[in-house]
């Protein structure tokens, strides 16, 4: 069976760039044991391909409500000048001592970054108006492994206009089975 780089297990995955951003995912060997024995009698909710990760399964999968297993962080400068491109990095790190299964949407894996103005209105959203392929990817992170996505925001709104100087709230999201994985909000000051 031939396997493409994008679908291979145990290889470094480099996804194609999107707009001005790029996705770089450090992929670990898929732990077969994580898949083994998942499936019980028909109809019983299970984790992974057999069930939602937010199910009652005891499998070591990630529920959006579980934050001690996964460190999801959005990295960006605290302050930038107006008109200067803003590099943003979304990092998902496995904090556990055992492999962690993530079930992420899209091919390539979709990630979102949302910028809110001081009134809480969406000034820009990376996936605004985007159509993503609705495939589900099983990604296993070994202990300490990091999945990383990068994007450079050109400080333009969804309408394409430059956003005014001010204080913005920024958060990242990873669409996943059971609901998006969401980072803590970060503050970005755009100065004149």
């Amino acid at each position, binding site marked *: *069976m031939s396997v493409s780089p994008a679908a291979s297990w145990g290889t470094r995955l480099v996804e194609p760039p999107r707009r001005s951003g790029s996705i770089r995912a450090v992929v670990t060997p898929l732990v077969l044991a994580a898949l083994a024995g998942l499936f019980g009698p*028909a109809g019983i909710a299970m984790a992974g391909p057999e069930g939602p990760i937010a199910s009652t399964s005891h499998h070591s999968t990630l529920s959006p409500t579980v934050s001690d297993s996964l460190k999801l962080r959005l990295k960006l400068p605290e302050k930038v000048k107006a008109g200067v491109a803003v590099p943003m990095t979304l990092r998902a790190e496995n904090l556990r001592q055992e492999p962690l299964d993530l079930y992420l949407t899209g091919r390539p894996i979709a990630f979102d970054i949302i910028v809110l103005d001081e009134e809480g209105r969406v000034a820009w959203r990376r996936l605004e108006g985007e159509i993503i*392929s609705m495939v589900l990817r099983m990604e296993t992170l070994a202990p300490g492994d990091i999945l990383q996505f990068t994007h450079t925001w050109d400080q333009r709104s969804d309408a394409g206009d430059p956003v005014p100087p001010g204080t913005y709230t920024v958060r990242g999201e990873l669409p996943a089975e059971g609901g998006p994985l969401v980072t803590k909000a970060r503050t970005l000051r755009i100065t004149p």
Partner: protein
Amino acid sequence: MNRVSVAGRVVVMIMVLAIAACGDYTDPVMSPPDEAALRGGPLGGLDIAAQFAGTSPEVMALPGTVFAARDESTGRLVFGVERPAVANDIAPIMARQGIPESGYRVEVTEPIRFMSTLRSEHRPVIGGVQIHWSSYVCTLGFSVDHAGGRSFITNSHCTDNQGTTGTTQYNQPSRTSSPDPIGFEADDPAYVRGGGVCSRGKVCRYSDAARALYESGIESRARIAKTTGENNGSLEVAGHFAVQSQDNSSTSFSGTMHKVGRTTGWSSGNVTNTCATVNVSGSNIQLLCQTIVQNTGTQIVGGGDSGSPVFTRGSGDNVQLVGILWGGNTSGDLFVFSPFKSVQDELGSMNATTDGVGGDGGGNGGDDGDGGDDGDGGDGPNCPPNSNNPACR
């Protein structure tokens, strides 16, 4: 006068309660153990556990029995049956074991079934259920008769190499639970540039569809799994939609469209755009003449629904197949599908309204005359007779 009346009412109520309590006590279900039942016959003198052990295997072998249990509070055996007539079959067994009618009771109850979901194994294979390949999960769209052999259709992006016919192996619902593959990728046409319609820097097709050839002997039906309700998020399979017809000619649609997928189940929405050019996020792929369906505020699509069959409803559970879902927005209230006509234009003529078996018809093998050497195996694939695994051809 009022005082007397109230007192009288209290007395009457106490009497009613007492009578009711006595009535409860005389209820056969609540009566104490029948000593005779515990002592008579071959099992006489044995406790209820021994009675249970002595009778339940034989009783539970009867057609229509649902459960056997011990009611320790009454000292009786309890048998659940699907219909009253089954009790007539139980009576001789109990009599033979020396257990009188008062030593057991029979209850009519609903049969107990494993709950089947869109993520369960389905044989024969039907549309709308989960398939697993490599490290991805998608939905099986529909099964078809095709010149290349009995096949199923899923998305082009649900293959190892999108736009290149490869050897993707599909398991249903997953490789861990059902290790034998149901089929292998057989056709995934290339995405092409230019042509006067494809935008600069993009590669295009009219359908996000690929065909996989069923493994020999795998049965499939012209059906789509039907869950417990529309737009209720349920994944429990409660029946089937019958694919009565297929739309071979339309690329423009209107009205309500339905889909069934392994993540969000049976959902529906209204067509908002038709024959639209759609770019796939994060890629250089552009799909031409697609249809967009929306149900604002309701989740009708999620990761894993790729490949879902899209259909319109006729009378009852009869449906017309109109396309295959491949994408959606992040909030999940909008999905995009490729018309069935475009799927056929790119993958060849197909019939989605018939049942079939892998290995029937088409050009998928048959000659197994000289392929008998399966001696040392090595690292090669496990090839059953007439396997469609490309490595076995």
